[in-house]
């Protein structure tokens, strides 16, 4: 059984006991533990079930590479599925649950699929469930789906908060192991701003558990000193629980800082902070990860990486069992045996797959009296939910059993893989080094920054040199390089004394025994989480899935939550063996961000709920809010759709607003309309190019409706232009269009017509704008007082400036409702006050505020077009009978050339018409299509409805439509199919329904 020694464990504080729950059981650990070490201390070896076959699984590693120990943590709004226990620092009150089992963890009904594993090798689903067709949808897929996934998703809203931070640094060092710390120390005096990050909750990495002497100090003590030293340096920021997860273009890094322990103590603390970093240089001191060996039963709980076993022992005082054997292909794994043996654990056997080793560590193990067998391998591990024994065989041959050894834990080591994910996120290449038996950075193909220069250096074991004495081999070079980059005087590089350990080369063997039979291969796991076995890789290559990417996709190798940190290299080695090519020919897969999975919450940062997206509010927003407004988002603006009174429905409210405006008086908050000033000697000329119609001829004091097309000729915005004085125009745009039109004008001015003398300023926010519409509109203005608004003095499309009551205003006589209408603009600061003043004075005139929907209905009654309804990005002004607003005199304007193209001249283009229903109790639905009368199919389509409303003013339905050659259809009947299968019959009419002569607005 696994247990905690009564002493030892350099990270844990035995005085601070923490309680936690696993599958409902109350357990205890210590401060400084990870959840993994705390579980092991409680003899919890079986930790989860594998993805496909539901095989029992235990801890195989002690870090981010862990594929098995994934748990659901917390509950309700703080539930987190798939959390690896090895990376979670223990805090008080953790509730952890194992995942992916039907029934209990111990007795999982899902494990029945394990027995069928022979029928279900890699890619089996491509070959079956094909017939009958309905069965896939109704039987097979639902069955497969129901078995999918690991943990359960939370159901409630996430209660945690997340933080962003932008940091600009000179050097970022990734990895707080010994190489990272030493690099930082050497750079610390240069005055550079340095960030050093460590993903775990402690510094030192393997140098804490694999102790050696450095400058005559124990490595753990050396690290402690370094850490103390660096934390006092104000140029260096030291961070634990911090991973750099991505390297992006132009030396942009993403880092995730984890505060989960803090958050558990103080709920107002943030959970994660996503760092967005620009650095000039990046140093990878990311270390290495030990590889498993592939043999039958290598996934049975109790089989663990030797480095993990050592770390659990040294850092947390955990023993993996009472009788522990080791299987290795290298010398380094022997150190764990020495440690465990010295702690009193029985080591019945060390199996070394190599022919021999005369390295220092193997000799030391022998000297301790431990039996070491060279040239041997494991036939298979016996046991189901726990290692019981191993069968031993010769490395050559098929795996005939020579001996069975009782044990409760198997340590394994297949050599080391340097962690180079970050090296290749941004285009850097990686190659295999046969000598070092690991990946190494390909210095000839590096990630480059915006200057086309490489900006990443690699130090320590991430370079593929794993023995302590080799760790600092290129440190001096890196430091020098950095001095050059930053133009600094060369500094003296500090040399370190580390005794060299004589060692033998690592064997390239990763699968044992060499010629294992199919039965054994079927139990030899390469990818633990996704249950990819040796046989799967063989079948895949046999079927031609020989490129690394094909193999990966066909077998799901390396696609699990650990992203192949343990399995990829073994998979590639096996592939290279199977297809008889060198590893570099087979190729390695591309590493993609993130290095370790990061919470989606951290990616969203603070931008959630009310901070999700900016909301723009008009000066009158608060009044609307307090007076029953239902909001309609238009761009970032919130506009009142209608104002509900008492128990009105939305529809009733809208009709009331329309009728009230038509019969007496209405007011609309039009502040969101875009207002752009174009001023300068060439302003008129410039606007002649921007608008389709002529603006330069507009007289000061007058307004003109204008259209804007893009270079494709399509109408994209409209609005009224007022000429304020000889050289200044005020251009109104749609609400959604204000920023777009402003940028559009600036773009053309800056990039095409910069010789035109104009200045452009977006004044949308400067003015609140109130539309006063209805037969009594003039009365209200007279009540406000101060301006002469007599019809003779103040004609349609005039504007005047002055004081209305106490308010500085500009009043435009323009109408979008068809009523007598005034648009009053006043500085935003006074918007709310003027609005309220209008209401007060208007109350005896029966004024009502109306929203966007009433506005829409009234403009449709008048047949006015609306950008976004009558236009959809494919409509030219001519389609909307707006030829009158497209100048024929002007030599050029944006869109003019496009209008000359064949398709724009086609007589069959859809043009705007009105539709009148025979049956006035009906309403044409939004978005409906019109067909030739009696028609049914696609060939009968005439066009679509662009706007449709019930007109409260006319008490009948009205609609506008874009129909093929619409003008020729006037007076004809068309059919409008409904969702129900019925049709409405409509008559094509002129798109003006209300007050065709325009008497109402011109009074």
């Amino acid at each position, binding site marked *: 059984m696994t247990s905690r020694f009564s002493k030892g464990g350099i990270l844990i504080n035995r005085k601070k006991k923490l309680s936690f729950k696993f599958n409902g059981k109350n357990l205890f650990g210590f401060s400084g533990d990870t959840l993994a070490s705390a579980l092991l201390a409680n003899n919890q070896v079986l930790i989860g079930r594998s993805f496909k076959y539901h095989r029992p699984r235990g801890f195989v590693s002690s870090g981010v590479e862990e594929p098995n120990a994934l748990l659901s943590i917390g509950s309700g709004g703080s539930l987190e599925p798939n959390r690896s226990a090895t990376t979670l620092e223990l805090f008080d009150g953790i509730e952890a649950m194992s995942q992916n089992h039907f029934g209990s963890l111990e007795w999982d009904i899902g494990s029945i699929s394990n027995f069928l594993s022979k029928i279900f090798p890699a890619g089996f689903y491509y070959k079956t469930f094909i017939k009958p067709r309905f069965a896939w949808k109704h039987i097979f897929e639902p069955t497969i789906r129901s078995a999918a996934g690991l943990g359960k998703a939370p159901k409630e809203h996430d209660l945690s908060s997340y933080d962003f931070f932008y940091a600009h640094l000179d050097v970022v060092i990734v990895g707080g192991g010994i190489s990272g710390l030493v690099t930082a120390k050497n750079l610390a005096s240069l005055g550079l701003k340095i960030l050093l990050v460590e993903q775990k909750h402690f510094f030192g990495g393997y140098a804490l558990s694999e102790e050696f002497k450095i400058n005559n100090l124990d490595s753990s003590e050396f690290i402690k000193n370094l850490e103390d030293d660096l934390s006092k340096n104000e140029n260096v920021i030291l961070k634990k629980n911090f991973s750099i997860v991505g390297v992006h273009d132009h030396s942009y890094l993403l880092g995730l800082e984890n505060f989960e322990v803090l958050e558990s103590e103080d709920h107002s603390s943030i959970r994660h902070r996503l760092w967005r970093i620009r650095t000039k240089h990046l140093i990878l001191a990311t270390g290495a990860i030990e590889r498993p060996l592939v043999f039958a039963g290598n996934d049975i709980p109790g089989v663990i990486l030797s480095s993990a076993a050592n770390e659990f022992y040294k850092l947390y005082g955990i023993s993996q069992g009472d009788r522990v054997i080791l299987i290795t292909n290298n010398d380094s794994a022997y150190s764990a045996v020495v440690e465990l043996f010295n702690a009193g654990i029985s080591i019945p056997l060390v199996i070394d797959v190599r022919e021999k080793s005369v390295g220092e560590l193997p000799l030391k193990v022998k000297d301790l009296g431990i039996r070491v067998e060279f040239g041997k391998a494991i036939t298979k591990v016996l046991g189901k939910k726990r290692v019981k024994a191993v069968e031993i065989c010769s490395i050559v041959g098929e795996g005939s059993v020579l001996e069975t050894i009782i044990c409760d834990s198997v340590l394994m080591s297949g050599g080391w893989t340097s962690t180079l994910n970050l090296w290749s996120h941004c285009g850097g290449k990686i190659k295999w080094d046969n000598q070092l038996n690991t990946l190494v950075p390909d210095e000839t193909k590096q990630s480059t920054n*915006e200057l*086309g220069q490489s900006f990443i250096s690699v130090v320590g074991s991430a370079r593929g040199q794993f023995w302590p004495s080799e760790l600092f081999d290129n440190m001096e070079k890196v430091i020098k390089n950095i001095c050059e980059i930053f133009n600094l005087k060369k500094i003296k590089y500090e040399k370190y004394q580390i005794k060299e350990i004589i060692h033998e080369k690592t064997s390239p063997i990763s699968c044992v025994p060499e010629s294992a039979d199919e039965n054994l291969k079927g139990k030899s796991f390469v990818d633990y989480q996704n249950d990819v076995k040796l046989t799967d890789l063989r079948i895949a290559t046999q079927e031609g899935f020989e490129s690394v990417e094909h193999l990966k996709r066909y077998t799901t190798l390396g696609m699990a939550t650990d992203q192949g940190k343990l399995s990829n290299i073994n998979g590639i080695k096996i592939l290279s063996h199977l297809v008889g090519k060198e590893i570099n020919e087979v190729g390695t897969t591309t590493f993609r961000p993130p290095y370790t999975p990061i919470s989606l919450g951290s990616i969203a940062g603070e931008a959630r709920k009310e901070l999700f997206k900016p909301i723009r509010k008009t000066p009158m927003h608060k009044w609307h809010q307090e007076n029953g407004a239902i909001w309609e988002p238009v761009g970032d603006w919130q506009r009142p759709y209608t104002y509900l009174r008492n128990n009105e429905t939305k529809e009733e409210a809208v009709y009331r607003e329309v009728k009230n405006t038509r019969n007496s008086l209405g007011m609309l908050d039009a502040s969101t309309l875009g207002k752009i000033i174009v001023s300068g000697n060439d302003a008129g000329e410039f606007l002649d190019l921007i608008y389709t119609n002529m603006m330069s001829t507009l007289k000061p004091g007058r307004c003109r409706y204008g259209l804007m097309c893009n270079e494709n000729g399509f109408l994209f915005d409209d609005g009224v232009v007022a000429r304020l004085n000889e050289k200044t125009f005020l251009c109104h745009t749609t609400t959604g269009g204000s920023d777009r039109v402003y940028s559009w004008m600036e773009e053309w001015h800056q*990039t095409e017509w*910069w010789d035109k003398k104009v200045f452009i300023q977006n004044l949308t926010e400067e003015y609140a704008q109130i539309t006063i519409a209805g037969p009594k509109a003039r009365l209200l203005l007279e009540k406000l007082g101060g301006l002469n608004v007599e019809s003779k003095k103040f004609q349609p499309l005039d504007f005047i400036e002055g004081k209305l009551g106490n308010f500085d205003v500009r009043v435009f006589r323009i109408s979008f409702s068809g009523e007598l209408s005034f648009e009053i603009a006043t500085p935003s600061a006074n918007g709310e006050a003027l609005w309220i003043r209008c209401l007060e004075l208007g109350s005896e005139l029966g004024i009502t505020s109306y929203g966007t929907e009433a506005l829409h209905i009234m403009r449709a009654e008048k047949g006015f077009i609306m950008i976004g309804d009558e236009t959809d990005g494919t409509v030219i002004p001519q389609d909307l009978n707006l030829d009158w607003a497209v100048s024929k005199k002007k030599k050029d304007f944006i869109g003019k050339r496009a209008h000359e193209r064949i398709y724009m001249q086609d007589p069959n283009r859809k043009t705007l018409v009105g539709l009148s229903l025979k049956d006035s109790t009906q309403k044409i639905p939004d978005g409906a299509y019109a067909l030739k009368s009696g028609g049914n199919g696609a060939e009968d389509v005439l066009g679509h409805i662009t706007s449709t409303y019930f007109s409260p003013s006319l008490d009948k339905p009205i609609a506008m439509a874009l129909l093929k050659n619409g003008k020729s259809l006037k007076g004809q009947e068309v059919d409008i199919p409904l969702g129900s299968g019925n049709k409405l019959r409509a008559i094509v009419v002129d798109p003006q329904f209300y007050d065709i002569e325009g008497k109402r607005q011109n009074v």
Partner: protein
Amino acid sequence: MLKFICPICEIETDETELTPGGEAHLKRMGPGSSDQNFYTYLFERKNPRGIHFERWLHSYGCGKWFHVVRCTKTMEVFGTYSAQDTKPPKKILDAIKKKLPNGKNVK
């Protein structure tokens, strides 16, 4: 995440402060131009895998358009210059020549 020196502000600007604007140095074709020329102007973009002359807007800063020369394969930036320069500065062209002596992708 790209960053460019805005040639107007002469500072580094982050991609999130900018708006991309497509190919640079297009010759506008107005009324009277041939169908082919108009089509080329509107749609037929240079789309090189390599050096690309393009426009960006410092939308969250000075509000000015500028030109960028960037490699679409390596993201290397060869320089930035004013939107009113009708030709890239010699300095940038020299830098490109140095990088790509055979002149591929460069006009």
